[in-house]
């Protein structure tokens, strides 16, 4: 069989792209804050979300390690048979496509809302798609190498944005804690887990790690680091904006506009915008790579890099038609979209583990009788 993707990535690159994958919504809409009725408890939901995601990430990596050199699309067909396996592959493909549509529209809306309201939204989306298609066409190695660099830029910009508005921070804004009960935590947890369910892409990346046995460790690091970045964002936003933190469309961008040091160190929002653009481009190119590899494996193709530009065109077109506005997109991402992603990721994993269990039992019986 032809090897579709010949590239190999290191554990650190794997971790970096996973963190970038999760941090994109943090830099743009940050649904955890916008979807919370009482923002004081959002940092707690981040911790709960990370605690739930670690077992999920571990289960996906462990399953991938049982099938060395095979992606989730390939071993789904081994475990569930060619028909059900392919159907599951199509569902995963749809999830990847939906995520790429969401972030393309998200970045376009963010640009239009924040800085260039007169420019047509598709101008930003087309540029983003071309950039990501070009990176994805160059293969996984290039995307992940870029992803590692973007990760450092992203962490630097985020930490700068969290720390520098210290003059405006009032930590008493974080109180009261859990005053509205545990039920108040549910909406942000759903939004958080919805984004974390995109870690299903681990199933596509593990076979291309130069040391696949490190995958579990680095997947856990990715959840922990992204969790810390989000918890700090939640604390900084609530400390600065208080209970009204959930009313901002682009919270982190608004936070960066608060930065003013000695009347000369200002306009840091440009750095936040750079972080948006770079991280969204990396996430989109990773998703384009995953989508085209999925299509190639589902239809037994020998090459997949040719599919990038048509995929980019489809993504831009669908992202224009899927949502009516930023409000529509935000509501979908935090609620129905998040819930459907959680269900798909959870059920996919449950189905694959159930099939693995049945396969192991049958093999043991056959081995015992033989």
């Amino acid at each position, binding site marked *: 069989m032809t090897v579709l993707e010949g590239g190999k990535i290191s554990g650190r690159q794997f971790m970096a792209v996973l963190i970038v994958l999760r941090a994109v919504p943090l830099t743009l809409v940050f649904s955890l804050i916008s979807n919370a009725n009482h923002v004081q408890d959002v940092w707690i939901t981040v911790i709960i979300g990370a605690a739930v995601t670690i077992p999920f990430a571990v289960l996906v990596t462990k399953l991938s390690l049982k099938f060395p050199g095979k992606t989730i699309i390939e071993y789904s067909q081994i475990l569930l048979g060619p028909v059900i396996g392919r159907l599951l592959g199509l569902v995963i493909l749809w999830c990847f496509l939906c995520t790429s549509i969401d972030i393309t529209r998200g970045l376009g809306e963010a640009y239009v809302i924040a800085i260039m309201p007169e420019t047509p939204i598709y101008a930003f989306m087309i540029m983003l798609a071309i950039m990501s298609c070009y990176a994805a066409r160059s293969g996984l190695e290039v995307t992940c190498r870029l992803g590692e660099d973007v990760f450092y830029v992203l962490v630097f910009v985020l930490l700068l944005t969290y720390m520098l508005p210290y003059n405006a921070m009032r930590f008493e804004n974080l109180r009261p804690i859990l005053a509205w009960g545990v*039920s108040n935590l*549910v*909406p942000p947890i*759903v939004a958080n887990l919805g984004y974390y369910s995109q870690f299903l892409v681990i199933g596509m990346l593990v076979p291309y790690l130069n040391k696949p046995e490190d995958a579990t460790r680095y997947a856990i690091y990715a959840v922990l680091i992204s969790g810390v970045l989000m918890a700090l964002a939640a604390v900084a936003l609530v400390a600065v904006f208080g209970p009204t933190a959930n009313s901002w469309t682009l919270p982190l961008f608004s936070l960066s506009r608060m930065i003013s040091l000695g009347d000369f160190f200002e306009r840091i929002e440009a750095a936040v915008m750079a972080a948006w653009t770079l991280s969204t481009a990396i996430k989109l190119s990773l998703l384009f790579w995953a989508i085209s590899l999925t*299509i190639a494996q589902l*239809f*037994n*193709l*020998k*090459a997949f890099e*040719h*599919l990038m*530009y*048509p*995929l*980019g*065109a*489809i993504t*831009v*077109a*669908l992202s*224009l*038609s*899927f*949502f009516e506005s930023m*409000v*529509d997109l935000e*509501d*979908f991402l935090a*609620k*129905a*979209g998040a*819930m*459907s992603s959680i*269900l798909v990721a959870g059920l996919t994993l449950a189905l694959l583990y159930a099939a693995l269990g049945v396969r192991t039992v049958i093999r043991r019986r056959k081995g015992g009788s033989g």
Partner: protein
Amino acid sequence: MATVILLIAVFTVIGLFEVPKILKKGLWRELLVFSSLLILGFTLSVLIALEVPLPSPVKGIRNLMNPILRLLGIHTHLS
């Protein structure tokens, strides 16, 4: 109409960029998948350029997920 002409130009460029490479390698199945995706992308883009309202699966997903979300106490203002 100008947008449609521009779209035809863009998609022709994508075709001219990729098709010779695919043909050179004799990858017929790849050509079929590539052409299908390109035609789909082109059709969607033209429909959007002509402002034809396209059905959005977002509404369907919302309707499907709303009962579960309501059970969890999450209310959406959009339907």
